[in-house]
């Protein structure tokens, strides 16, 4: 392969060469970062919630009369009884929050009553003996709550449960290497209210959008109590295949129990699929947006290479003809243009790789973003070189078909 004559020829169209290389460099830099963002966001999307999501739905019921806590407690128990008796419903449980809700009550978790700094932070899920079955979350150690352990409390009171069930990830964080079962932890901010871990669930996600605090994403504590707030959430598991019917029946049954409640028409009743969609909407959206921009970017760069190379081929028909007349084969001509493009491409991707890393480092300082892994740059480099070769193929083939007769034409 003769590289010297190619370099010599490039010197005659410096500007065009530089512009293509620049375009490749910028494309690489942007696409690497965009792909990295897509990967980060889709990785979040595919995390498990720890909940058996099909056939599960959520009802948010606010009390219209904001009556006294005792009345709320009685109403909640009546509601639950009515829900569980429905033919289309498998199980139901009351709570304040659930995985993927998007926000809620978190408490600092401590291991000793006099501890100043927290050990970690966890989502507080109020639960009863039906909660695990309703969520479809399995226990990996210990036991479930019993009906007699379920209490009730007002929203601004400190937690006071003697028994709690915690998620696997929280257990590992609190007692790395050991078992959390039977241990005492401080979920309540009140130092006089220790809690014993009676059960450990399999993976169970917290309710927060936790990009800033990824360490807490799977920390959850189940509190055996009904929370007597201005409203409550009911988690309801429909019998298989009866989700729509159960959602309709449950709303009707609740209104039949009492009309002094508010169930928002828009998002008062949501399937868990809708909950998931809402929680990850901005992640999915960002991935889609970055995907669209990457595709457009690559298409435009490829088209630009086709356009400019075609022009060069047209400009050099006579020289190509001369080379062919002097004995160059079609393969030689094809090779010439492919090599020329490869050289420009290598120049572009080298600059682009540096730029990609530079942009990422800057974004790390400006936004909540991780360091770009070099694998992405490597993949991007190979992809852009292949894209360049693919784009140049058609004009190069056309060039190789230039007949030696062209050499004899004057214009």
């Amino acid at each position, binding site marked *: 392969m003769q590289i010297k004559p190619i370099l010599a020829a490039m010197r005659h169209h410096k*500007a*065009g060469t530089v*512009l*293509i290389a*620049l*375009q490749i460099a*910028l*494309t690489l*830099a*942007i696409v690497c*970062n*965009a792909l990295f*963002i897509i990967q980060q966001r889709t990785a979040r999307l595919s995390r498990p919630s720890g909940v058996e999501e099909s056939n599960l739905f959520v009802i948010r019921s*606010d*009390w*219209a*009369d*904001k009556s006294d806590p005792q009345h709320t407690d009685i109403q909640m128990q009546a509601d639950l009884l009515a829900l569980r008796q429905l033919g289309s419903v498998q199980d139901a449980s009351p709570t304040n929050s659930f995985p993927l809700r998007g926000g809620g009550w978190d408490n600092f978790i401590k291991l000793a009553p006099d501890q100043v*700094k*927290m050990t970690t932070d966890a989502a507080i899920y109020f639960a009863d003996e039906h909660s695990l079955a309703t969520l479809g979350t399995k226990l990996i150690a210990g036991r479930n709550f019993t009906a007699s352990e379920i209490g009730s409390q*007002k*929203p*601004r*009171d*400190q937690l006071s449960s003697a028994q709690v069930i915690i998620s696997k990830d929280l257990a590992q964080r609190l007692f790395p290497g050991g078992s959390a079962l039977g241990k005492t932890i401080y979920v309540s*901010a*009140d130092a006089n209210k220790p809690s014993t871990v009676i059960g450990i669930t399999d993976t169970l996600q917290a309710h927060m959008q936790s990009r800033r*605090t990824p360490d807490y994403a799977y920390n959850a504590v189940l509190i055996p109590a009904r929370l007597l707030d*201005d409203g409550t959430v009911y988690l309801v598991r429909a019998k298989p295949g009866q989700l729509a019917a159960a959602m309709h029946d449950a709303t009707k049954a609740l209104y039949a129990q009492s*009309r*002094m409640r*508010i169930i*928002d028409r828009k998002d008062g009743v949501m399937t868990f699929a809708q909950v998931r969609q809402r929680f990850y*909407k*901005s992640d*999915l*959206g*960002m991935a*889609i*947006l*970055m995907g*669209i*921009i990457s595709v*457009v*970017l690559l298409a*435009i*760069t490829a*088209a*630009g290479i086709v*356009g*400019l190379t075609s*022009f*060069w081929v*047209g*400009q050099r028909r006579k020289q190509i003809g001369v080379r062919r007349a002097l004995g160059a084969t079609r393969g030689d001509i094809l090779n010439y243009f492919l090599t020329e493009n490869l050289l420009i491409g290598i120049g572009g991707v080298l600059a682009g790789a540096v730029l990609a890393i530079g942009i990422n480092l800057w*974004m790390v300082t*400006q*936004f*909540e*973003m991780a360091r770009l892994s070099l694998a992405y740059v490597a993949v991007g480099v190979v992809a852009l070189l292949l894209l360049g070769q693919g784009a140049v193929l058609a004009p190069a083939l056309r060039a190789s078909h230039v007949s030696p007769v062209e050499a004899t034409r004057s214009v």
Partner: protein
Amino acid sequence: MFSYYLELALRSLKRSPGLTALMVLAIGFGVAASMTTWSVFRAVSGDPIPWKSSKLFVPQIDMWGPKGRGPDSADNEPPNAMDYTDAMALMHAHRAKLQSAMYQISPSVVPADASKHPINVSGHAVYSEFFPMLDVPFLYGSGWNADDDTQRAAVAVISGKLNDKLFGGANSVGRTLSIEGKDYRVVGVLGHWNPQPRFYDVVNTGGFSIGVEDVFVPFERAIAMGMPNDGNTNCSEIPSESGFVGLQRSSCIWIAYMAQLDDAAAVSGYRSWLDGYAKDQQTAGRFGWAPNNRLRDVPAFLDQQKVVPSDTKVSLLVALGLLIVCLVNTAGLLLAKFLRRSSEIGVRRALGAPRLAIYAQFLTEAGMIGLAGGVLGLLLTGVGVASVSWVLPKDIASLARLDFSLLTLTLLVAVVATTLAGLYPTFRASRVQPAWQLKSN
């Protein structure tokens, strides 16, 4: 002469339709991506009260001290909201021209027609000065007065939307409304008022919210009735008493505060008063640390609270990157196109055309591509703005709008950017040596 250049440009563009289409597409996509993301960025980073934002201030007092800041905070930033004690102290001192403490409420409203379900509405408990301070527009009536504040009067200001729902849109001033089971007299109905970001209570709304605020009641009335706060509550230590009263006696923060200070003297006066207040608290033993206050105006506070989501900024930057690549692409193609016509340029120059004429001719051609790209960009921006709700959360997507200024900007950016991209190719074209061109053929 210009029409002649237009004709030349058109002819040249027609000669290579593929190349022309490619340039127009590139400009169109680049501009549309930038303008769509810009429309979102513009909406979320805009000043919600531009005529007054530099006079509205958010005071912050460090009632937690360095120990209360938690493990994540690196800087010495005081809490971003207020506890009840300090908010009340600031209200009673009444040092600003206008001021209001406020907290978010979500009371139930029972319509007069008993057959209807009660509805939950959202709103704020505020002081009377809230309305004149924020230039809140009224459709009927007005806000309540300072006496209503102190007497804890059962009065309410409702939104036009709630007025439509409950009173069929009629002037309801003087009529009665049941909030949380108690009767309130309507004193004012708001006109359309939905500032985004919700600058007066960023902490509780996160900046943006889909619904409008339906109900405003006097702050001290809401406290007296035990109307709980529906916003965030952050505590650095356990309240020693439970319930809403316990919350009021704790150092937990849940109250937003805003003050109007008209000039630099008022600002510095207020600042030194805040420091004096914190020092008094230190002397009294309530704060075990030196005064650490902040007094930011609305734009500075919005910036500090990072109201503009970082996704919005990243999207805009990536889209601008796309536009730059499209321009580099166009510059390369224009260069090729222009230099192919070297002999034509040579003839024109030989016949006496000055360099300026060459500039005019080729920049006209670049501008035409820009214009065509801009028109395509307009269509694509329309599609883009209409479909942002697919990729963005509702509260932000609903703010992106296609308006006249965005349309103008789209065209302008397309034409100016493409003309700029055409500058270097045109410069090269103008440097063509007529003698050399004529000889070589």
